[in-house]
């Protein structure tokens, strides 16, 4: 037996019975509705609240790329992954760069922290509205300037323009989060590390690779997972700016889900789609939770 194994004590779980009243509320507001979704996913209805057993029919249709529903699902899923990949590819390096160039002491720290936190405090639909107006060529500064420069920019009709707009919007909204996380990680590095590097005559790049990057790698994992989950569930901002268009170019799963569930009132299809969507997000959440607790446990062991 190693020392590590001996320090793990058995949990006493009796206190969990105290949360039973809360469990009743959660059951009413979350568990039962979730069970209803599973129940709808195996049934079909022609309205009038009359349901028919459909087995795994909706799932078959959903996972068949040649069917109408399956095609929509695969396309939207692809757009979701592309969007998440693109914003991560921009926000993570940009966030690290900004965090590295931030002041380390004095009033400037507070000023930059407040400025950076501002976009994080703006609600999603307001960010969407800001960019919806900002990008218009008649009354928006961005659209007006680009059109004035002779660039064909119109997020209502151009697929590329629409994508660039929503990606810029997300970068504008959420890069600060990555910056703040990285900055916190950087601040935790003791000065001794930098002094040693100075004595060794290490270059700026060497300091970054050997000291800073390893020390912020854990917060970076958290930042990547947080931003992935958030961007994978995106709904409000593209809904406000592009409404899922032009055509279906920016229709993400969540937007399609609302169209199917409330627009067409296809409860079975929407239920099957949301279960698969939920499973993907649940998996990422689990990874996120595991990484977080793993980091905590590792820190606790270091302290002991």
């Amino acid at each position, binding site marked *: 037996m190693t020392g590590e194994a001996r320090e*793990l*004590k*058995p*949990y*006493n*779980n*009796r206190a*969990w019975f105290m949360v039973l009243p809360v469990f009743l509320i959660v059951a009413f507001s979350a568990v039962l509705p979730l*069970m*209803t979704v*599973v*129940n*709808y996913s*195996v*049934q079909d*209805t022609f309205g009038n*609240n009359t*349901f028919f*057993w459909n087995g*795994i029919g909706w*799932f*078959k249709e959903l*996972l*068949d790329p040649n069917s109408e529903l399956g095609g929509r699902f695969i396309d939207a899923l692809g757009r979701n992954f592309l969007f998440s990949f693109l914003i991560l590819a921009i926000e993570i390096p940009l966030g690290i760069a900004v965090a590295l160039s931030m002041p380390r002491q004095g009033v400037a720290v507070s000023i930059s922290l407040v400025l950076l936190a501002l976009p994080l405090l703006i609600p999603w639909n307001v960010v969407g509205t800001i960019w919806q107006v900002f990008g218009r060529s008649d009354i928006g500064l961005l659209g007006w300037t680009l059109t004035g420069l002779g660039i064909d920019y119109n997020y209502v009709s151009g697929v590329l323009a629409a994508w660039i707009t929503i990606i810029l919007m997300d970068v504008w909204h959420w890069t600060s989060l990555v910056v703040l996380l990285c900055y916190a990680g950087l601040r935790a590095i003791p000065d001794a590390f930098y002094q040693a590097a100075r004595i060794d005559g290490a270059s700026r790049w060497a300091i970054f690779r050997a000291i800073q990057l390893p020390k912020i790698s854990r917060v970076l994992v958290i930042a990547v997972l947080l931003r992935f989950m958030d961007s994978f569930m995106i709904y409000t901002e593209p809904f406000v700016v592009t409404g899922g268009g032009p055509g279906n170019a920016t229709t993400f799963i969540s937007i399609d889900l609302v169209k199917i569930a409330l627009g067409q009132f296809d409860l079975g299809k929407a239920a099957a789609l949301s279960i*698969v969507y939920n*499973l993907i997000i*649940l*998996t990422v959440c*689990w990874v996120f939770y*595991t990484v977080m*607790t*793993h980091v905590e*446990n590792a820190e606790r062991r270091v302290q002991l």
Partner: protein
Amino acid sequence: MFEWFSAIDIAWMAWTVPVAIFFGLIAVALAVLTVLAVVRPEKPRRGLLRIETTRGDRFFISLLGSAFICIIWIAISVGLGISDIQLWGAMGLGLLYGIAVFRYV
């Protein structure tokens, strides 16, 4: 005394027997885990994934993985052009996967 209870009509929820069995089994499993946690407190252990897991963690991983096994099973069957898809095979695979998770993770 229980008149108000019998007056509640939940027919509009359109519950079905298979879904009831599915959630019933999960509820039983959770109840068993709860009782086990009190009667036989456990130590989290490290297995194949190098992370600390308790029985509850392993149950969650088993359920989540089995759901994906079923989805992939349906997707492959649809891809092969099978029209009458049976999930018994996926269920067996999920069960094997769950046993493996409880033994090795």
